[in-house]
């Protein structure tokens, strides 16, 4: 199915190139339709063949290697960000589920936090991080990027988990009460397992959000080595080498897919013994 969709997207792209106006369509003087010339929309096969060519003249490493190295760099930071964000989100969700007061006080601020433009926040985090020094521990620059990833990732986890933790069937809670189970026992033996179906989609959102957070952080703080930095670099060369930037963009999209795929694996593992939804 995924491959079929890929073929479709490719076909639409090429079809538009075929029929679309080369210099963009204008309606009442507004440029609305995208330009279909080779600089704005290179052919799919040109992008693919670009992967095998060296990054720049005089170098022998194919661009695929450079881009994949960049993706690996970004991936590792995104994983750290995802992990921090998930832990933070889970912690907040448990707190909010435990104390109604905390939920009322905290939830609006969580929502507000997500409306702060990331691009404005990133340099701040870097400068805060630069001033932090915990004894021998020195704040590495990449950690700031991970924090940005976490900043985007924690929100869906917190909200999704909270919803899951508070959707426990009352009868099950009563059962636990009849066994005189403590709140902690109820949390780990009932509320969390029952929340898993709510948490999986939240974690998938968080996985892609952490990639976006890290990439924006790379862009706005000038952290070198990641695929986000490559996108900026290559975009500047778009007039001379239009397919170049697309090599990085496509790999970034794949990176997001890989992250979601990892959550999908966790999903399959955790839900293997549960009834299919259709059976309920």
């Amino acid at each position: 199915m995924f491959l079929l969709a890929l073929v479709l997207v490719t076909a639409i792209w090429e079809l538009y190139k075929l029929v679309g106006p080369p210099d963009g369509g204008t309606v009442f003087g507004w440029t609305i339709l995208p330009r279909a010339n080779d600089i704005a929309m290179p052919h799919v096969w040109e992008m693919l063949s670009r992967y095998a060519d060296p990054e720049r003249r005089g170098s022998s490493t194919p661009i695929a290697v450079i881009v994949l190295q960049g993706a690996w760099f970004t991936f590792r930071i995104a994983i750290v960000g995802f992990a921090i964000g998930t832990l933070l989100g889970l912690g907040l969700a448990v707190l909010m589920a435990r104390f109604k007061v905390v939920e009322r006080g905290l939830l609006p601020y969580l929502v507000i936090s997500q409306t702060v433009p990331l691009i404005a926040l990133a340099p701040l985090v870097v400068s805060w991080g630069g001033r932090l020094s915990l004894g021998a521990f020195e704040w590495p620059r990449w950690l700031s990027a991970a924090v940005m990833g976490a900043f985007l990732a924690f929100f869906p986890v917190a909200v999704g988990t909270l919803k899951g933790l508070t959707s426990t069937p009352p009868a099950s809670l009563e059962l636990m009460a009849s066994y005189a189970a403590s709140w902690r026992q109820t949390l780990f033996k009932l509320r969390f397992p029952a929340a898993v179906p709510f948490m999986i989609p939240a974690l998938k959102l968080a996985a892609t959000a952490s990639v976006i957070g890290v990439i924006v952080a790379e862009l706005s703080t000038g952290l070198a080595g990641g695929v986000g930095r490559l996108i900026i670099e290559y975009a500047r060369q778009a007039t001379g080498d239009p397919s170049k930037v697309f090599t990085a963009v496509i790999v970034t999209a794949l990176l997001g897919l890989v992250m979601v795929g990892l959550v999908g694996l966790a999903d399959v593992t955790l839900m293997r013994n549960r009834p299919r939804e259709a059976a309920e």
Partner: protein
Amino acid sequence: MNAVEVRGVSKVFNAGRPNAVEALVGIDLTIEPGEFVSLIGPSGCGKSTQLRLIANLTEPTSGEVLVNGKPARAARLDQDYGMAFQQAGLFDWRSVTKNVELPLELKGWDRARRRQRALEMLELVKLSEFADHFPWQLSGGMQQRVAIARALAAHPPLLLMDEPFGALDEMTREHMQVELLRICGQTSTTVVFVTHSIPEAVYLSTRVVVMSPRPGRITDVIDVDLGTHRDVETREADAFFKKVTEVREALRGIDTTGIEPDIEQALEEPVEG
């Protein structure tokens, strides 16, 4: 020592507010060890509330509930009773054995001991070969048997059941009643059983407590002397029908004005589905 002692208990929901409801008034009930007592009555008569009071899942507004000679709260904390609800309420993510182990886990038993007890319990409810299945792979009746195994896993002296067979079809239901009597006989467990069904109450019980709504109270207590051994024959015996009629007449005496029509119907026939 009595298994359950309810003294002068009343329960008011939303006390002091305009929408206050007197769920129970002046309830006195003493249940001795080994008894099987059914609570029967139309919806709104407070039979479930009374069960929940015994279970200490809710507190009485006034009066006193003793279980096993201790205050209900202490009895709950000591896990002196097991409970089964209309929905089996098994945990989807746990295997059948793990579900039965749940109360033992909460008590802090070690793995081997838990496992052994769970397998014993599954043997008791005749589900040994389904030990490693998951709840959704079982039929409704089998799920309810697992729930009973779970409720009795810690060998509590008292079993509280809130319409446990209400969602089962008639044939499964009769089979479950036979099984329940066998299990309780083997484990000499005292049972308090809430039901809508007159034949079910008569077949299972040594005593049937008839309750009436608005406010919820006990209007009749009927001894059922059908002997300790009951089987298919029992259901067809004259003595059985006589008792069913007696309970039905006791229920008919209840003023049901103001009760929704579908609930009146529920009085005449056991609720299905």
